[in-house]
């Protein structure tokens, strides 16, 4: 039967997938989604653990994470829009005017 460890492994895998996304993606929008993926991986873990301990804290945390993820997207997209207005691209390789 499927135990906690399976869930944790899944979440770990998704987390790493998200991480890979963050590392590989060149488009900022995609990059944001990757971070969302990571956060949701964490949610899985939290949900599983809280069920394992049957204690609600984990789920609470999960909910908060979802909320925060949402607001992150909001703010993030806002910034992206103004950025797009200025630069006309979301490719982060064009985003290196400050260096050194």
């Amino acid at each position, binding site marked *: 039967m499927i135990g906690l460890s399976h869930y944790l492994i899944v979440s770990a895998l998704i987390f790493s997938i998200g991480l890979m996304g963050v590392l590989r993606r060149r488009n900022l929008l995609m990059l944001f989604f990757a971070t969302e993926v990571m956060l949701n991986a964490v949610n899985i873990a939290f949900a599983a653990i809280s069920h394992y301990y049957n204690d609600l804290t984990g789920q609470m945390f999960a909910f908060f994470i979802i909320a925060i993820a949402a607001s992150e997207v909001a703010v993030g997209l806002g910034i992206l829009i103004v950025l797009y207005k200025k630069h006309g691209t979301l490719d982060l390789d064009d*985003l290196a*005017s400050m260096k050194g």
Partner: protein
Amino acid sequence: MMENLVYIALFAPFASSLFAALFGMSPRQTFVGIIASLLLFTSFVASALLAYYVYTTGNSIHVTMMEWISAGDLTIPFGFLVDQVSVTMMTVVTLVSTVVHIYSIGYMDHDKSFNRFFSYLSAFVFSMMILVMSDNFAGLFIGWEGVGVCSWLLIGFWYHKADVTRDENPSISPSWAANEAFIVNRIADLGMLVGLFIIYWNVGSLQYDVVFSALPNLSGSVLNAAALALFIGAMGKSAQFPLHTWLTDAMEGPTPVSALIHAATMVTAGVFLVIRANPIFSMTPEVSFFIAALGTFVAFFAASMALVNRDLKRIIAFSTLSQLGYMFAAAGLGAYWIALFHLAAHAFFKALLFLGAGNVMHAMHDELDIFKMGGLKKAMNWTYAYMGVASLALAGIPVFAGFFSKDAIIETAFNEGTYVLWAILVLTAGMTAFYSFRQVFLTFHGKARYDESTLHPHEMYKFVLIAMSPLALLAVIAGFFMGGFQTFVTKLLPDYVMSEHTHHLIWVLTAVVLVFAVGGIWLAYKKYANGLKRDEELENSFIYKLLANQYYIPQFYEEFITKPYAMLSEKMWTSVDMKIVDATVDGIAKLIYKSGDGSRKMQTGNLSNYLNWMAVGAVLLLVVAAISAMLG
């Protein structure tokens, strides 16, 4: 009363120096010279009175003016001691310097730095007085360095002369000679300082009386070390081999200076030191014998160079060197009072000789080459007489001062059974007679070898000649006081009497010396009395060249000490200091800066690189964590 005399004797020259210094930068004023001379004469009178007092009462005067340095357990006062030895020196010094001062009024009359000259000269006398009067080694060292500086100033008196090559002028320039003298003396002074340190740390004081009374409890090695160190100091001032080169170069100074400093007084300071510290030396036979041997060697060595030299003053300088050798020989053999006596006698006739030479230069417009002189007898018979007398004394012809003193030294050498030394000294006596009369004849006899149309030699001013007379007189009669002198100084110095055996042979010994002396004179007469006959193949012979070039010792020093030192210094600066030490410091700085330039590259400005850095960091940490967790 007596104390005041001490202070008068000591500070009159100082006052004179300061007074002259006041006018140091103003043009020549004769009265400066006169007042200086008067003050010096005062000093002489005071010294003479002191001498009389010490002679009659037989007790010495000891005054302490004030404390100089005191740190830890060391205490050095300005203390002055007037006893048989120092009073002798005082009298001699002040007498000769008085004469020289008066002489200089005449001799320097055309020099624009007339006043400055007197201030230096008196300053020298002051330092010399400190040297001889001090009651402790440190005080002696003050005088010791003081005379050093004054001689630096006076040798370099005509500092404005430019450097020339050694062939034009063996002592490259006055300023060069001055520096040489100072530095060479410094080398010796280090030895002297070490001597002081040894004494202090073993005795706990530098006062003569304390030190000498403490000597018996000191180990032989300590005594030897101290004696040797002190003697190294003496070697510098008295220009003993190998530190002798500066003395002949010092002849660049004005002639009165040569007379006073480089003949009569300063150069004898070394001898004085040995005599003053005789308790130490008489307890260290090995060192003493070394002194005697070295003295004898120098006597011969210097005389040999004098034989062929053509420079009037240098010849006399060499003879001074040689006579200093005699003195050291005597002192080394334990005949301290004889050494002191010869010192005094020599001071008189050698000063006279130099002043005479000065007259000649004055007449010949600073010509020094005796090959370019001759026949001056008619023009300046006073000077002729003076120099004749002085040379007779120097050659050690009976009744003249030199006869008694030098003969005594030679006898001592015989008496001590050191026959080799005796032989050399006798031979040297012969050479001495030869070169001094070679010089006299070449200068005064024969016919003129200079251009008589342009040059009209004339006798020195009368007052100068009169001023020289006391020296002449003493050069003649000083010897007769030998007995009295002996009884006087041996109250303080260990007496030295010839053994019975020597006493029997005394006439023989004297005869031998006389034969050599007269022989020397006769030889000189034959060769030079009527004009100069150049002898080419002799002058080109190796030995002649060797002697003429002072055994190439100055060149040797030049090549193997001066130049390497300069080169090494240059290397030290350019290669070591700049290229290694400093470069390392800057190198470290540059390295840090470079590493900054390198590491700033991680800041590409590209977001994905940043994210990678972050992820890499995280993964790395996780891996490390895992590993270290495995290892526990």
